[in-house]
């Protein structure tokens, strides 16, 4: 299947062809939706390696369960949910594997200059100018996100980055609407506590025209 064909085949047609035994047709769905799934996975797991694992597993499971999908929804939404389910399982596994390290060890980030930045973040007395920097804020945020429970992190990512409905999040969390709303609230409150000083410093820096 060439590039031009991949661009013109609809999701519904690709699903139908895959179910008819044309394995290559699944490529259309993988290439069309993998970047979106990667973004979700990265925000949920906080590192590239796990994000790529989530993407692979989501599409593998999608392929295996394709008969269950059978055109009853949007394929992108469907595989997104599979990815969220896998990612939350992965987060739970990671937490249970090493719960102590999950809250105290340095963040697992991609290699490179970010590691140095993280060292600077743990500096007990960072200057206001540094705190106002967006790279520093991003790292603080990554650190704050890593302290959330898997359910809280899933809820905040699905709700505030991807605009998912409470019912969709509840389905992934295997919970009900009210409990899910509470989970979202807890996540926001925790992040707020961790991020507010830095978010405010950044806002002040903007107001002063230093950023």
């Amino acid at each position, binding site marked *: 299947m*060439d590039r031009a064909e991949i661009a013109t085949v609809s999701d519904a047609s690709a699903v139908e062809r*895959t*179910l*008819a*035994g*044309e*394995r*290559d047709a*699944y*490529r259309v769905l*993988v*290439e*069309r939706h*993998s*970047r979106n799934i*990667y*973004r979700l996975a*990265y*925000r949920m797991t906080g590192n*590239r390696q796990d994000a*790529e694992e989530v*993407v*692979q597993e989501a*599409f*593998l499971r999608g*392929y*295996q369960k394709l008969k269950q999908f059978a055109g009853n929804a949007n394929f992108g939404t469907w595989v997104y949910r599979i990815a969220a389910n896998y990612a939350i399982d992965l987060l739970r596994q990671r937490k249970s594997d090493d719960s102590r390290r999950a809250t105290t060890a340095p963040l697992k980030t*991609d290699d490179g200059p970010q590691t140095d930045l993280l060292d600077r973040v743990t500096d007990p007395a960072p200057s206001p100018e540094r705190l106002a920097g*967006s790279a520093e*804020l*991003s790292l603080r*945020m*990554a650190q704050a*996100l890593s302290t959330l429970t898997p359910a809280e992190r899933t809820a*905040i990512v699905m*709700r*505030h*980055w991807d605009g998912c409905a*409470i019912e969709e999040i509840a389905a992934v969390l295997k919970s009900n609407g009210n409990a899910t*709303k509470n989970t*979202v*609230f807890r996540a*926001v*409150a925790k*992040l*707020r506590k961790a*991020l*507010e000083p*830095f*978010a*405010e410093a*950044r*806002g002040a820096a903007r107001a002063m025209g230093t950023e």
Partner: protein
Amino acid sequence: MMTHRTEEELIAYRDGERNDREQIAAHLHECTECRAELTRIEAVFAALQTMPVPDPGEDYERRVWQQLAGRLPEKPSHLWKELFVPRRLIAVGAVAAAIALPFFAGRITTRHEPASPSLDAGKLRERVLVVAVGEHLGRSEMVLMELENAQPAQHGQKSVDMSAAQRRAEDLLEENRLYRQTALRQGDQGMASTLDELERVLLDIANSPETVTPTQFESLRKRIEDRGILFKVRVVSQDLQQRNKQAKPEPAQNESAPPNRSKT
């Protein structure tokens, strides 16, 4: 005394999850403290939006597919649907003919004694397969030769586009599997073994990245060369040509028979 809204109410309000939105909006209009609280909450959400997601690279989608493709099992689907995928038709047809023709030939020969040499079941079976596999090997040889003759490093290329070779290798793989299985069933171990080796090489090509560096290309070419597959394919092709000649029916004794009757 004014009662302030809770953090939970303000977060839910911002989130569009409150039924009493108008009352909260009215309260916010009057209460500077709650307005400031909402502004602080907004600042946190704004900060969340800045969290970067590292770019996985321009060819990310293709890489995902390449890693995934090898893990996908064949779909359990109806056999007839499998058979009617166009690129498999030729190979399936040849295999089917190899099985069916001798059967009919056998029936015909039992009715018209003595048996005509042109309708000998064994020869027909062999000839159909010999012609089909010969063509398959010819196409495979072309792909291998093109790879062996390409010299991207000498032409100063920074990358080599493998997509065309990949697609051809994928198509050849389908045929190759069918022919290998048929050769095995017919007890032709020599041909099955060469087809097995060819399959590994075709897999190697089909699974390589769509774009490779000259070094990666050279490494692939070296692997192919080390297997000596091109030589083996040529040997088998020549053998098949020989067998094809031998399996050709002798000229018809009856001069009234059409001269090209036995042409396949």
